[in-house]
């Protein structure tokens, strides 16, 4: 039976969630940007904790600060309040324990598949033969065996994203941080790649934090889903996904899956509507101003 863990009202209103002991702890993060219309709070007092081996998804409407949170956790963005810790160590800048997979196409077009995947090993100073041997294992893991000498331009979008995942996994991060990695792919490819990610996550017991706006993807993959509010981005609710593992894309046809999707959509609907209204208002004002 699906169980839905709802935060107390006070927390759901946007305050901090209880930071359980985890390998990755985000504690009371606030990030503000200066805009021509005044300061904009992108992320407001967000706290979360990811347990070792857990798959946590962060979901929210466009403009809720998901990517800001991704960049803060990955150490690519500074100038925020609060703290991010990995295994108790505070993160200042990119941390070797965190491997990042980006939303945009991020393979190096001038490198072959194996050279792309071996990239972090090359940076670490590993000998060419050793790093290629190791890269082959990760290429096989993402199901791209036989494509080692191909260039990204010769691959489909889904295959290129798998190369990017293999490249990040080759650095053997303790935490895999993914920002809408399947956003540019079609639905069928997205589901099948979800299967692949689930399989990898099970095989490697990989702690994973997925940023997404796709409810189906979040429920298919995650152990817990953190729902964010629209601007400023706060934690609205954390939903525990009690679907059996190992999972595959077949789970999307189950009744429990549908209930989770409905539950999360009811949370998101209000936020997405606010986001849409806000967007329309800004477009209207921009039109009047021009």
């Amino acid at each position, binding site marked *: 039976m699906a169980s839905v863990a709802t935060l107390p009202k006070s927390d759901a209103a946007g305050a901090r969630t209880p930071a359980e002991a985890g390998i990755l702890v985000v504690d009371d993060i606030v990030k503000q940007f200066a805009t021509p219309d005044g300061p904009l709070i992108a992320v407001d007092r967000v706290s979360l904790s990811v347990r070792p081996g857990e798959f946590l998804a962060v979901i929210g409407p466009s403009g809720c600060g998901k990517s800001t949170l991704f960049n803060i956790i*990955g150490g690519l963005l500074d100038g925020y309040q609060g703290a991010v810790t990995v295994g108790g160590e505070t993160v200042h800048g990119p941390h*070797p324990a*965190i491997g*990042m997979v980006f939303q945009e*196409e*991020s393979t*190096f*077009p001038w490198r072959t598949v194996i050279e792309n995947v071996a*990239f972090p090993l090359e*940076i670490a100073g590993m000998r060419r033969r050793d790093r290629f041997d190791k890269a082959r294992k990760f290429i096989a893991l993402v199901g791209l065996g036989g494509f080692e000498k191909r260039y990204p331009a010769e691959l489909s979008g889904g295959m290129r994203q798998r190369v990017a995942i293999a490249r990040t996994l080759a650095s053997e991060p303790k935490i895999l941080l993914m920002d809408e990695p399947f956003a540019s792919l079609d639905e069928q490819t997205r589901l099948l790649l979800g299967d692949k990610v689930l399989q990898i996550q099970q095989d490697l017991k990989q702690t994973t934090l997925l940023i997404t706006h796709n409810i189906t993807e979040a429920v298919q993959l995650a152990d817990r889903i953190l729902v964010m509010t629209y601007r400023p981005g706060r934690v609205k609710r954390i939903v525990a996904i009690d679907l059996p593992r190992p999972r595959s894309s077949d789970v999307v046809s189950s009744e429990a899956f549908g209930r989770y999707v409905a539950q999360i959509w009811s949370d998101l609907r209000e936020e997405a509507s606010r986001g849409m209204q806000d967007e329309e208002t800004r477009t209207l004002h921009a039109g009047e101003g021009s």
Partner: protein
Amino acid sequence: MAAVTRSRAFPLALGLGALAAAILAVEVLIRIDAISRYIVPLPSQIAPAFERVIVEEDIAARFQLTFLEAFTAGAMITVVGVALGLLLFRVDILRRATETWVAAMASAPTVLMYPLFLVIFGRSAWTIIMMGFVAGLPPVILKTIEGLAGTRRVLINVGRSFKLTGVQLFTKILFPAALPTIFVGIRLGLIFTLINVVGVEFLINFGGLGQLINDLAERYDLPGTYAAISFVILVSVCFFVLTEWIERWLRPVD
């Protein structure tokens, strides 16, 4: 038909065919007096002039001199232009302060400064090389800045996520990503360089193909002049083949 157009030989054959057609058209236009034969000689007269220019005018040595002057200037614009482009890319205030001047310099007729260069470097190959260098430098600088600035943010973030040092970020990501744009700048720079090298050879009468064109023009040997100009085009073709080969070697696939 599709198989023929896809073959590797087809574009070459089409290019050569178009060239032959253009030469034939010029021949016809001159013969029907649409073009004055006192300005443009008949292509059928230029063809035999090649043998005369090669045998009597020591074309190999002249070709070699022009090629070496242009090659030296080309190597200099590549090294200095990419280095300056990187500097201006990294130091924003310097870039904003000088980018307009560099762009203005690209369109300046620097060839007119040859008396100044003669005073500085004397009547030597270095005057010609430096004139070629000054003329070809701006496009390399500008295109290097453009290429580096145009590197997709996500690729830089990938590098940052793997904790690359500044040097690693440049050599492993920024430079390879910017390479196609940098090579556009190098090719443009080489065009300006070659024009100036041949132009200054022409003006100061210091050997090379430029001097030969000057000599032949003064003798009113129009077929010979056009034959010599064809050798300048050959130098240009050599440079383009060379740069294409180096680019493919550095970055096999776009």
